[in-house]
């Protein structure tokens, strides 16, 4: 079976400080992988590196994304190949309307993939359909990107964008942070409805709570720049109950 993304022995640093220290992860189509771990383990770094943030230096390792060398691609080309990052802190862009930039994005993605431009009518139909999916007020959809949005609206807007762009692989970076329980449910429902046998997701989270709504096929613990433990969804419950210290202890014993 083919893999969507295959991360091998990834080492990365910023300002000379090594954050990722040999990370391995493989996601196949139809799978949802959860990455959990304590603060500072490198979870968000991993998300940023996969999306193409340029401040990080990759010192070792490789990332194969659906047959392409991901690390060789520019940020926008990663998106065009079907990678999507839902930001932990979505950026506010005054004056740029959501739908306006999404139309440009969609058309540039289509052009890259040799497809025709989307017609205005089809585009608006898509906006209506997808904004309903995440219960995002269509007025918000046409407002400036994230400007004046509440925390919950920003996260819903991320999932709305994901729905519009229909990526092969979505990385959700702490999408649950700052969400109340209703918003969490809406966001999770959106993600679940977008799941197909062909696409996959990496869900980065601190808390098990999100995983009640988005049920992962695998749970990984990221600690000190590496995946140190992987298991089925029950691992999340165990982490919730015991915290991360027992894993640290286990690791120390092993040494």
């Amino acid at each position, binding site marked *: 079976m083919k893999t969507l993304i295959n991360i091998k022995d990834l080492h990365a640093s910023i300002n000379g400080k090594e954050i990722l220290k040999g990370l391995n992860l493989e996601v196949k189509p139809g799978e949802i992988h959860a990455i959990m771990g304590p603060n500072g383990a490198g979870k968000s770094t991993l998300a940023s590196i996969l*999306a*193409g*943030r340029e401040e990080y230096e990759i010192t070792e390792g490789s990332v194969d994304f659906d047959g392409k060398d991901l690390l060789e691609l*520019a*940020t*926008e080309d*990663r*998106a*065009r190949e079907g990678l*999507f*990052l839902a*930001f932990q802190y*979505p*950026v506010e*862009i*005054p*004056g*740029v309307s959501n739908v*306006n*930039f*999404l139309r*440009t*994005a*969609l058309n*540039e*993605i289509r052009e*890259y993939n040799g497809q025709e431009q989307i017609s205005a009518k089809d585009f608006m139909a898509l906006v209506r359909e997808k904004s309903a999916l995440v219960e995002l007020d269509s007025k918000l959809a046409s407002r*400036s*990107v994230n400007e004046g949005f509440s925390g919950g609206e920003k996260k819903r807007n991320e999932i709305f*964008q994901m729905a519009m*762009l229909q990526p092969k692989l979505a990385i959700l970076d702490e999408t649950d942070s700052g969400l109340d329980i209703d918003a969490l449910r809406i966001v999770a429902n959106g993600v679940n409805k977008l799941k197909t046998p062909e696409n996959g997701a990496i869900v980065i989270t601190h808390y098990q709570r999100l995983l009640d709504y988005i049920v992962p096929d695998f749970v990984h613990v990221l600690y000190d720049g590496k995946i140190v433990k992987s298991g089925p969804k029950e691992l999340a419950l165990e982490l919730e109950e015991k915290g991360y210290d027992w894993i640290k202890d286990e690791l120390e014993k092993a040494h």
Partner: protein
Amino acid sequence: MSQTLMNTKLDQFRSKLTPSKVKIDQTLLDHADAYLNGREFPTTRDEFWKYTRLTKISNLQINVNASIIQSIPEAAIIHPNAQKIVFENGVYRKDLSDNIHQLSGVQFSDKGNSNFSFQEEVFYALNYKYSTDAITIDIESKTVLKDPIHLILISSGEGSVSMPRIAINADKFSESEIIVSTHNVNSQNCLTNVVIEVDVQENAKLTINKVQNEKSTNFSVFNERVDQALNSCFMLNTLTLNGSWVRNNVRVNVKGQNVETHLLGAYVTNESQHVDNHTLIDHLAPNCQSNELYKGVLDGKSTGVFNGKVFVRKDAQKINAFQSNGNVLLSDDATINSKPELEIYADDVKCSHGSTTGQLDEDAVYYLRTRGLSEKSARHLLVTAFIGDVLEKVEDEHVVKYAESALSERYGWSF
């Protein structure tokens, strides 16, 4: 007299100009003479000209050129239904202009004068003394103009100097829009020095849309003076789309109560362009509001100046004055000098001013790129959004379209 005339650079400059034949109040002319005689061009030691050098203007090789244009250039058409008044090198071209006399509710005269007292400023003095032509537009009381009047100022030839003077009188309860635009045809090293004197009378509403789109190496100085009476509303939108050297001097005297004043400006510069906006709103009466927003995008080695001053006089209570200047620098070599100023002598007012200068938000660029936009598209989108903030407040959609297409032609931006 002839002795003093060769002493200063300004005298030398003036010796190449022809004193105006346009009728003007003798007192004004005497003031202008007295002001100019023996004077030097202002230098950067003068606060008013601190960031704008006049050396290039004082060194201009001035010529008097015959008119060459046969028709209004396509690029000068902004509004399809506007009544057009055309100037070439500051001279009124009646043959190319629409017949404004036929417009009901509008009195037009090509024998201008000035209702204003002398302004102690070199470009005003030069205009009074050497005006190439002067017109008066009178919007009669209660007239509501459906379509704007468009003043088209065209420079042609080498070293032409245009000094038109335009008087606009918006009479009581009138509503009108005037477009003023600058263009050029086969011209370089030309100077345009316009004086626009505006009287907005009680309950009148007037919008001036100023579109500066001169290419090549021309220089332009706009001097606007506006008096506003009780219950009037005045809006001036200054869109500087091109031009190697542009200076705008705007002065609004708010003399009556319940007055609204809106000054908007957008300037987009590149290469070695220089654009300077000086504005002054003088609140002399209580219960008024003024709103000022200027935004600029500067690239290449271009320089910009914003100096916006708001005076609130002692008896001008309950004033709501808002002023903001924002700039984005797209290159390391672009410069902006921004100086918002408030001088308040009343104690019950609400005033704010602010200035921001920065680069494009790199986090926003990255965010857009993660959605599949190329870096170029992402930057264009952010720049157009920044300037669009001003353009969207301009009510005349033809002016907005013109500005957008000029910018998209020049920079490849799409709005």
